[in-house]
């Protein structure tokens, strides 16, 4: 009998243990077991309501009862009927010791949000605020060759003037207005070559964009003086680039392949039937390179460039596409890529910027800095894009911006009254 009593006592202990364990082992409610992702639903609801900027408008118009009623109708219509909500708009100010967030208006369809709720927040900006990006000004003069007395080659479909306008438009925000100079004719180019600015701009360290493609404008005096060997003009141009530390930009094809002056060379055609243009062929570039390196002039008609086919933008150039908002095709066809050998042959020893990836011993798109042996300062640069026609001015612009790296100053939504925070809290109606 004693054993039976002991067993009954043991059973009582086990019952107590079970009841105690059951008391603490509380199973979650079915809603907690398989919850609706209220946080995501809340966020997507806010995004939907703001798809056309409606929520942004209402958030800053807290006294407009009609607009808030419409918002409540829309909110009620797009949420399932068993969902209760509370939407609150907060002003972001934080000035004069006020709290950073202050509730400006709230709507709800229930007194409370039940036993469990979740929320998402969404930042909206006032439509009265304009987001601006101000580029840092490049401290150099930009000369755009817009010579009315010159023709272009390999700029098929464009004119020299239309390309010049494109560059002017693209660079107008990156330079002070007095630092962008349109060189209107070859006489003005001759003036620059003689060291005289056209206005108050600084001649030294300038950028010169040749918009004539494979041709280069030649002033009349140079055309007369070098009528036996026009490539000597290219040599003089190289000397100027070296002396004034210019960055010469060739936007397409073989640089200095032709010289052009529609008046002085009116009776000469470029072997393709375009008058006002003389074909220097490969000698022009060789002479320019001799000039930039201050070597004595020697006629050299050896072909320099290579056809390397499809090339791609470098990682840096791709990154700068997004930074500067310029989006040329990431792949280009380079049929006039300059060889890397010119770097040692003409002291173009530093590649400051590479726009197109080097391939096969060539640099299809790069800014070469000329530095004399033993010197440290740059004395002239050549930015040659050896791509095939038709030129993409965006590619040249990207290269120049990548070379100078102007900072883009972006405005921020920090001023009081320009931003609001919307919080949508959702709960499930009913009990647990």
């Amino acid at each position, binding site marked *: 009998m004693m054993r039976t009593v002991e067993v009954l006592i043991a059973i009582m202990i086990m019952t107590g243990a079970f009841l105690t364990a059951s008391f603490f082992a509380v199973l979650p409610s079915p809603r907690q077991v398989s919850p609706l992702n209220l946080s995501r639903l809340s966020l997507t609801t806010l995004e*939907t309501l703001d798809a056309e900027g409606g929520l942004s408008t209402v958030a800053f118009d807290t006294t407009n009862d009609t607009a808030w009623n419409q918002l409540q109708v829309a909110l009620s219509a797009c949420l399932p009927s068993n969902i209760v909500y509370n939407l609150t708009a907060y002003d972001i100010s934080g000035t004069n010791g006020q709290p950073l967030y202050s509730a400006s208006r709230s709507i709800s369809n229930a007194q409370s949000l039940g036993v469990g709720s979740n929320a998402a927040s969404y930042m909206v900006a006032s439509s009265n605020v304009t987001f601006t990006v101000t580029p840092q000004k490049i401290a150099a003069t930009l000369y755009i060759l817009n010579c009315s007395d010159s023709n272009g080659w390999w700029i098929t479909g464009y004119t020299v003037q239309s390309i010049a306008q494109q560059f002017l438009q693209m660079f107008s925000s990156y330079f002070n207005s007095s630092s962008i100079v349109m060189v209107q004719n070859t006489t003005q180019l001759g003036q620059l070559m003689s060291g005289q600015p056209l206005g108050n701009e600084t001649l030294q360290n300038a950028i010169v964009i040749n918009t004539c493609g494979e041709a280069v404008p030649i002033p009349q005096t140079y055309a007369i003086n070098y009528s036996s060997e026009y490539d000597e003009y290219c040599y003089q141009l190289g000397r100027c680039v070296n002396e004034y530390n210019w960055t010469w930009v060739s936007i397409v094809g073989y640089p200095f392949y032709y010289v052009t002056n529609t008046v002085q060379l009116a009776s000469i055609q470029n072997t393709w039937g375009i008058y006002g243009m003389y074909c220097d062929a490969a000698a022009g570039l060789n002479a320019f390179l001799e000039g930039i390196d201050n070597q004595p002039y020697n006629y050299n008609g050896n072909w320099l460039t290579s056809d390397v086919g499809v090339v791609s933008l470098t990682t840096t150039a791709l990154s700068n596409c997004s930074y500067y908002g310029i989006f040329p095709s990431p792949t280009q066809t380079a049929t006039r890529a300059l060889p890397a050998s010119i770097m040692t042959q003409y002291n173009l020893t530093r590649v400051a910027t590479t726009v197109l990836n080097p391939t096969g011993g060539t640099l299809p798109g790069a800014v070469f800095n000329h530095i004399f042996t033993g010197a440290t300062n740059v004395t002239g640069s050549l930015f040659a894009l050896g791509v095939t026609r038709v030129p993409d001015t965006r590619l040249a612009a990207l290269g120049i911006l990548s070379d100078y790296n102007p900072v883009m100053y972006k405005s921020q939504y920090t001023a009081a009254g320009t931003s609001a925070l919307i919080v949508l809290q959702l709960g499930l109606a009913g009990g647990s």
Partner: protein
Amino acid sequence: MAGATIDHLVAFTIFLAALLLFIGFYNQINQTAIVYQYHTYIATKCSDVLDSMLLNPGSPSDWGLSDSSTKNLTFFGLQDPEFQQYRLSPFSVMRLLSPSAQQYNNASWNVNGGYLLVQSSECIGYHSVTSMLGINGTYDFQLSITPTITVNISQIPSTDLKLEIQAYGTGFPLSNANVNYLMFWATTSTSGNYPVLNYNLTSNPVQTDSSGIAYIEFPALSNVTAFCFIAEAYTGGICGTGYLSQDTVTNAGNLIPYIESCDGGTASMMLAQNPQTGMGNLYFNASFYALPDNFVPAQAGNFPGTVNSGTPNQNWTITTNNQTGFLVVAYGDGSNCGMVITPLGVESIGMPVTFGANVSGKNWVATDLRQVLIGDIAYQAKLSLWSLQGYGVTG
């Protein structure tokens, strides 16, 4: 001695019974907890799979716009590649093969005179999608993409043509909403048998009342006019659309539009007589309208033709330039007219899409919901997901 033995036996028996009973009790609590844990995991999986579908465009990302890309799809996603967040491609959604599909994806068969019948070979099947999502054999799901705002249109008795437009959301009527509309109607031609497709594309917006209902009357049209009406209701930043088309069966049958392919900015349509045999001439006049977000349609092609028992189908290639829109067709046998409509991009007339396995009878189905946009139209994407391996699926 015998009494002590009996005492031991009785005590042991009672103790053993009590022990087994309590082990059973504890085991039951543990089992319930384990089941709950699996259910929680399924709910989490449901949320993950839904986001995976809605927040990536798939690969190749333009698969909705190209038949060949659809066939070469390596990863599944419905996001519009030109946007971010929860904005879906109207063309990708159109290519989801419905559960009842046979030769054509039967997303809609004559719902209010609307058809969305994409050739099945140009669509993406459910089992391909589960494989691409990595859940083949472990989970089944059903994805339903339905307009957040339902815009119901019905004709109400009147001597002239009078329509009732009812706009409501999942939980509430859309009161005081502005309603824009487009009206197409067919009339028999005085010079031939081809029906004339008339339209009024410049609507004066009306407003719904507190019940979300608005009325529009067309005094110039009789109550037996064959028409196709599209309405867009919007308020508070949310927008929904609906349609009603009078798909009349004439003495020469009716006309059903099929989407044969949709590729490279063009759509190949087939207009088929129904039934295909024993019918006389059925004349039609079809027009495709691109419908941008501002709800101002632009006609992008017109195609008149005839179908009969000898030539029951006519094919027409539309240049869509990858814009969404709708094809509206007026048809008639010379005396009676009807109209049908088919969307190119589901949102242009607010068609819902259901994709995946049948959810009925499944044990413990987790669901999750997202608000999404297709074009400018608000939709809800609801995913129901369940395990195929009982409670053994843990990851």
